Structure formats: structure tokens, C-alpha cells
């Protein structure tokens, strides 16, 4: 097929194919052949060949997953005929409910957009990657811009679908929170890792939830 001199020996080929499998297994997005070539240090052409050999072997073995080439890369996905099982599982999945962490992250993006993942991380104090990915997969947030700075970080914002789900006409309809939250410089000081004393007490959640009709705007606030 290809020039014999270029071909790695069999043992190595086995390892390279296993490496391809491992990388694609953990990847959240389809992995381009060029990236695999770079990581494994083999020609793109060989990578492509190995990937189709792998795909072929999965289909021969009639596995419940397949290796497909999609959106400029390779990924594992479930076989089309098994969709009913997958859907049944997804309806059972605990992750279907919006966790407290996910709600907070969504709220941060909603009120602070456009915002980068590192800014979200600084506010929440934990790595937000998983949650951001889930919110994006659900179509509540999306990458809306790039930071001008050197890293050109991705900036996130909420989507129109988010507004629809919450019954809002526009972002301007989000209830104001500025009055309840310490000044930006205080928040910044916190992000820098300094200890600051909270200047405002947040009303206990139960209280505001019990308020009939959510008389949202600071009835209980001085």
C-alpha cells in the first residue's frame, strides 16, 4: 500500500493504533487526523489508514459503538440501531437535573457575559470545564466571542434558547442583582485570593423562595 521503508514495524503499529483508541476515547470533540499524527509522531496518511482499519474491525466485531469521521475528526459514537437503549438511559440519567453547581455557573454566565472559563473558575473556586460543557451541550450557553488579550480566551454568553426557556424577552429582563452584591473591586480582591469580609448578607434561600410570586426586587432588603 505505502512505501515499505516508511512503515513502522508491526509491534509499533499495534501500539499506535491503541494510542489512537485511547485518545479518541477521552476526547470531547472529534479528533482531527493531523492532531493524532502530531501526538503519535506518525504521518497523517498512516493515521487515516489505521483509523479506517479500526473502524472496520469494530464493525466486523459488531460492537455497540462505532468509530466515525465527522466534523473534521474522529470520534466514538453509539451504533444507530441502539438509539432506543441510549435514549432510555438518558432519561434516567441523574445529570438530567440542573445541579446547584450548574445553576450557579449558568447564573454567572448570564449576569457576567461575555466571560471566560478562567473568570468563571475564579468566581466559583473550582474547575468549571465539565459544567460549561454540559451547559453548552444543552444549548443554554455558547461561545460568543474571543478575548482581545494574548491568550484569545473563548468567551461564553447565554443563548436565545436560554431566554426562551426562562420566558425572558431579552437579557435586560434579568432581575437586577447589583444592589445585593459587593462592588467589583471587592470581588476582584477575592479573585486575587485575598480574604475579604462579606459586606452584605445574602438572604436565606428559603425566605426568597417562600415569597409569594417571587416579589423579587428586594422587598426584604434595606
Amino acid at each position, binding site marked *: 500500500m505505502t512505501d515499505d521503508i516508511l512503515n513502522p514495524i508491526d509491534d509499533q503499529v499495534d501500539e499506535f493504533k491503541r494510542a489512537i483508541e485511547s485518545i479518541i*476515547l*477521552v476526547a470531547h470533540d472529534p479528533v482531527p487526523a493531523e492532531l493524532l499524527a502530531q501526538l503519535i509522531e506518525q504521518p497523517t496518511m498512516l493515521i487515516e489508514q489505521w483509523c479506517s482499519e479500526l473502524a472496520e474491525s469494530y464493525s466486523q466485531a459488531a460492537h455497540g459503538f462505532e468509530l466515525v469521521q465527522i466534523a473534521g475528526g474522529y470520534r466514538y459514537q453509539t451504533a444507530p440501531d441502539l438509539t432506543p437503549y*441510549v435514549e432510555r438511559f438518558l432519561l434516567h440519567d441523574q445529570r438530567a437535573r440542573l445541579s446547584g453547581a450548574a445553576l450557579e455557573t449558568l*447564573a*454567572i454566565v448570564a449576569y457576567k457575559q461575555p466571560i471566560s472559563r478562567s473568570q468563571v473558575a475564579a468566581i466559583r473556586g473550582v474547575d468549571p470545564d465539565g459544567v460549561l460543557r454540559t451547559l453548552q451541550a*444543552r444549548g443554554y450557553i455558547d461561545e460568543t466571542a474571543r478575548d482581545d488579550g494574548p491568550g484569545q480566551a473563548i468567551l461564553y454568553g447565554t443563548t436565545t434558547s436560554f431566554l426562551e426557556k426562562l*420566558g425572558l424577552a431579552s437579557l435586560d429582563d434579568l432581575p437586577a442583582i447589583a444592589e445585593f452584591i459587593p462592588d467589583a473591586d471587592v470581588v476582584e480582591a477575592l479573585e486575587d485570593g485575598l480574604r475579604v469580609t462579606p459586606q452584605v448578607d445574602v438572604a436565606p*434561600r428559603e425566605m426568597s423562595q417562600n415569597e409569594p410570586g417571587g416579589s*423579587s426586587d428586594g422587598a426584604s432588603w434595606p
Partner: protein
Amino acid sequence: MAMNVATPVYEGPFDMLLQLILKEQVDIYEVNLSTIVDAYLAELDRMQELDLDVATGFLLIAATLIELKARRLLPNMSDLDLDDELALWEERDMLLARLLEAKTFKDVAQVFAQLASEADRSFPRVVGPDERFAATLPDMLEGTSVTRLRNAAISALTPKPIPTVDLFHINPIKTTVADAVTELLDELPRIGRITFRRLTADLGERVEVIIRFLALLELFKQGAIELDQPERFGDIEIAWSPDDSFDSEAILIDTYEG
């Protein structure tokens, strides 16, 4: 997250004691006790919640150590009451059991580290369903009101106090057991007799009271004072009554040098 306040070498007094005995192969006679006792007191002071059980436990261990050491320093133990002797053996056994327990979990921790590093060699797939299933996924926002979102924003954006680096409340330990011994050696000969409650009445800090108590124990073991507690949990009576052999210079050296 700043959490490791302890010195890099010892993870608290227990660890210090364990390492000294096991690694350095020293016995209580050679161990610098005031360092260990001070480490206990520092740990007590660092506690963010007053926990009587823990405080008492620490105190008991510190006292046992001092008693053990004092006993070893005193050649004339024949005049000691058998009950006292047995009590000391019992306390020592308790301490031994706790050190063994601490050592057990130290060893378990090493196995955990090994298990974790083996497990870390494999990466789980946490990709989730692809976009073909987006429509199937239940709407996570169902039932979420704008008010809930606003409350979540307020809660997320409000700076939280970070309890572990609460520098405003850390009180450095001002006195050590050695300082307290010096003070008592000055005060007690003049006062003669006093109760523990009165002796510590003007001390505001729990730690200072504990330090005084440990200093008294030290003096008692050195034969400088007599202690009496007529009632269980009652007030302790202290009387200055140095033995013939009592040497205030020696005791100072001991408490300092350990």
C-alpha cells in the same frame, strides 16, 4: 487552598512524637518535651471549633508525656503510691495505643497513595452523549424560575469568607510552658497556697489556662509543690512545698532544654 498550616516536617504533635521515636530512635528522656507540648497547644489554639473532647484528649496526652518524663528524671520513685504508678502505666498504654493507631493510618495512607497513582494511569471516558441525542435530553431548566437564577447569581458572586486563612482570629501563643514555670516559681513561694481557679482567674485565654496547668504538673513532678483535689472535678489546691532536693535552676533548665 491554604490549609497546611503545620510545619512541613511534622504534621502536628502526634506525628512529631511518632517520627522522633521511630525514625530517630530516641526515648522520652531525650525528646524535647516542651516542643511537643507547645505543638499540642498550638494545635488547640488553631482549632476552629471549641471541642472539649479533643481538647481534653490533647491535654491528657501532653500531661502523660510530662509525667513519663518526670518519672524518668526522678531517681527516687520508691515513695510513690502504687495507685499512681498503675495510673501512669495505664495512661502510657493509652498513649501507646493511640500512637499505634496513628501509625496504622499513616501506613494505610501510603497504600492509598499507591492505589491512587495506579488508578491515575487510566483516564475515564466522561464525554457523554453526542449532539444526536440533544433533543432527547430532558430540559434541565424546566421548573427553574428567574428568581432562582437571580438567587444563584447572588450566592455565586458574593465573596465568601475563607475560614482557613482567617488571619484576624489567629492568636499567636504568647507564653510557653517554660515561661509559665518561671512565672510560677516567682509567684508561688510568695503566695504559699492557692486554688487553681484563683490562680488562673485573670487569664482570658483557654490556652493560657492549659499552659498554667501543665506548668503546675511539671512543678509537682519536680517536687516543688503539692497538689490536692479533694473532690472529683473539684477545684485543685496548690501548695508551695519544695523537697529538700528541689533545685529551681535545674527545673528551669529541664523545661527549656526538654
